[in-house]
């Protein structure tokens, strides 16, 4: 595709303003942003949730929902003003010249149509090809996005494919009509690190082959630094800084960019670096005296859900008092099952779970709410949006375990305990009366942590507690967890797919693949010298934030 660089940039956004009408009147989402993008160029838009990066992309695609409205500025695409373009013109433009891939590929694909049908639909919509030719083209596209065995995959349905495969299909659909600009809105969020890497490599390759321009929207500075030519940093509906990737990250000028850069973990960063403004944690090393009995010990735990393979296959490890163990693996590795086994929400098929010298695997999960250890073992769930009861205020959520496990009634004692737990989790007391939908992601995560802290547990299971959070929030939550461990001696079982986070927080590391332990040991050693091939693959796939490597 020949892009008319003589006529100016491929995409030019001038003073774009978007507002949404809500119950509380009109809310301005974009306060006049300027962006420009040449053909073949990759622009990264980075920022935290609520900064307006997705609204920007939707406005450019003219896909804002009914409540949203472009209230000022203009969008020029290939020299044409599409700000007020008619719906018919837009439909011709979308897909063929301007294309988009979304965050959650599974949700963006039609579940009841086969892959082939969906790609053919895209091709047919732009009237390029006959049905037969379109099917051949679909096959070509699946080859282009490197799907193994493309002939067989043509007739597959989205639920038969993995998340990474679905994203490849989305990419195939997005590039089907050879667009000049591809907007990728968090294309790899929610995918495993290794899949993340292959999807990004694929996008970069396709972009180079077809001479597309790309806008990569992400909250992950590591990803942006690795793949983008230029970066625009957004905060609260404004572009606060933009420039060439290397220059921008080497010498961030705006304080917000500086804060973002600081919060993004690099290969060498320690927890204290991530949020320099937060109160310093005294790095009191946790002592492990040899001979003290472990807080938690798993002995040859086995769990299967009736399928041909075991979800958890002969897993053993131990956590010393006030220890922190990281459980790392990709989706399907059995780490979530394992965390629920330890939390006694599931029963193991075989093996034993010993907590503080006492076997807790013998009490069935059905009865475990009455066991004395129930309050000692608490869990923080992955998705803060999903883990809070929508009908409970923060106060009720945190009071829930106290009411049930300690039989506290409404009154001063309960209020004091809830306020104490909230304070320890860093949740401001004025948020206690809010419902989950009135809280931000980070605040919800704190409610989840406060709820787990409330019954004063001795072991906390953290199931990817920061996966859904912004980097700056992640930094603060990680420091909080580290502080709880060092100051209150709470043992942590940290389940994550993010090796870098685990490295900073945990002394010990267990790497899981398909329910089996691949490697275990001190996390420092494993990072320095991984023994298992699988660990090495995982380590290589981590998108570190390293602007310098991009330059090299």
């Amino acid at each position: 595709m020949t892009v008319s660089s003589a006529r100016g940039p491929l995409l030019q956004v001038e003073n774009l303003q978007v507002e949404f009408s809500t119950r509380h009147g009109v809310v301005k989402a974009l306060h006049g942003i300027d962006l420009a993008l040449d053909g073949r160029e990759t622009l990264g838009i980075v920022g935290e949730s609520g900064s307006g990066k997705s609204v920007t992309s939707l406005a450019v695609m003219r896909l804002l929902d009914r409540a949203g409205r472009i209230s000022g500025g203009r969008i020029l695409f290939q020299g044409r003003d599409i700000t007020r373009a008619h719906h018919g013109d837009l439909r011709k433009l979308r897909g063929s010249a301007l294309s988009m891939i979304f965050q959650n590929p599974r949700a963006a694909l039609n579940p009841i149509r086969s892959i082939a049908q969906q790609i053919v639909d895209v091709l047919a919509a732009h009237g390029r090809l006959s049905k037969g030719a379109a099917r051949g083209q679909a096959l070509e596209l699946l080859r282009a996005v490197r799907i193994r065995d493309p002939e067989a995959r043509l007739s597959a349905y989205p639920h038969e494919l993995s998340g990474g495969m679905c994203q490849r299909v989305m990419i195939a659909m997005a590039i089907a009509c050879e667009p000049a600009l591809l907007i990728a809105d968090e294309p790899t969020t929610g995918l495993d690190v290794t899949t993340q890497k292959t999807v990004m490599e694929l996008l970069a390759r396709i972009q180079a082959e077809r001479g597309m321009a790309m806008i990569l929207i992400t909250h992950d500075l590591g990803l942006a630094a690795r793949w983008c030519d230029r970066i625009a940093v957004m905060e609260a509906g404004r572009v606060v800084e933009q420039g060439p990737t290397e220059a921008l990250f080497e010498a961030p000028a705006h304080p917000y960019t500086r804060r973002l850069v600081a919060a993004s973990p690099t290969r060498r960063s320690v927890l204290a670096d991530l949020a320099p403004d937060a109160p310093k944690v005294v790095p009191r090393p946790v002592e492990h005296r040899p001979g003290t009995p472990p807080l938690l010990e798993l002995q040859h735990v086995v769990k299967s859900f009736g399928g041909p393979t075991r979800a958890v296959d002969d897993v053993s490890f131990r956590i010393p008092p006030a220890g922190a163990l990281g459980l790392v693996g990709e989706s399907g590795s059995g780490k979530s099952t394992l965390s629920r086994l330890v939390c006694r929400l599931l029963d193991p098929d075989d093996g034993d779970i010993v907590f503080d010298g006492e076997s807790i695997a013998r009490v069935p999960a059905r009865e475990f709410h009455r066991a004395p250890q129930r309050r000692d073992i608490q869990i923080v769930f992955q998705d803060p949006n999903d883990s809070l009861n929508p009908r409970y205020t923060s106060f009720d959520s945190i009071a829930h375990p106290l009411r049930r496990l300690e039989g506290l009634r409404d009154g001063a004692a309960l209020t004091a305990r809830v306020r104490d737990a909230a304070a320890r989790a860093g949740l401001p007391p004025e948020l206690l009366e809010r419902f989950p939908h009135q809280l931000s992601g980070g605040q919800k995560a704190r409610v989840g942590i406060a709820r787990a802290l409330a019954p004063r547990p001795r072991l906390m299971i953290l199931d990817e507690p920061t996966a859904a959070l912004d980097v700056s929030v992640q930094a603060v939550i990680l420091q909080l967890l580290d502080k709880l461990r060092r100051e209150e001696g709470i043992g942590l079982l940290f389940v994550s797919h993010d090796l870098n986070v685990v490295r900073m927080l945990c002394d010990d590391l267990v790497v899981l693949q398909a329910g089996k332990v691949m490697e275990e040991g001190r996390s420092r050693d494993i990072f320095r010298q991984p023994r298992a091939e699988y660990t090495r693959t995982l380590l290589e796939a981590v998108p570190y934030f390293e602007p310098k490597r991009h330059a090299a």
Partner: protein
Amino acid sequence: MSDVVLGRSGLGRHVAYVLRSNPVTTVAAAGAVVLLFVALFAPWLVPYDPVASDVPNALQPPSAAHWAGTDQLGRDIFSRILMATRLDLMIAFSAVSLSFAVGAVIGGFCGYVGGGLDRWVGRFVDVLMAFPLFVLAMALVAALGNRVENIVIATAFINLPFYIRFARAEVNVRRNAGWVEAARACGDSHLSVVLRVLLPNVLPAMAVQISLNLGWAILNAAGLSFIGLGVRPPTPEWGIMVAEGARFITTGKWWLVAFPGLALMLTVLCFNLLGDGLRDILDPRMRT
């Protein structure tokens, strides 16, 4: 305590907002308030004794003295309609509460536990729904005896399948949510997860069903009385009034049927319209 008070004023503001932004709900809510008021205070509101006959004044058309006219025995139709509100609403409320309470619990457990229980209850519900429900209600009243409480039981019974299915589906989509697991970790047993965590969450969605059902239950009760089951004359009841008045419609005495019919229609309409507003009020996610 201060938390509770704050919560309540928040709810007040929220109700005010829902009513302001949705005039239809406001009208329906006003109608429901009037109906409840009439139902509660009917004996003190009626201008005439609703069962006292006054044969010389029989079949009078609507006038200043008798707003809705008089029937074949000279009874004041307006007074009878007011008194009937009491009985019809009482039947509908008790029937719907009964089927809601029983259906939500059964459906909630089916949705949460799944497996064999779910399959058996599901087939039972299917069988129940294969019957013409009104005929089933007739059979039940005929078998149990011609009394008001049996009308309540029959109406509750034929509504039960809807509540079971509804609660089952709503609980089923939520049972794997993080907050359900969290409740288990907070020390709830499976029983209390269903009763104290899941069912309250299903309530907003069910409120719509309850409201629609109230209208339907009133129609059902009136229908049973119309064909001579359940409530017996001379008790004032909309169905009976329509049934008795039907004989006179051919001779142009329309008011015997029209006014009780109108009361019935407006009541059912009012509850149907109320449903959506109720859902908005009960769902805390709408409260921002």
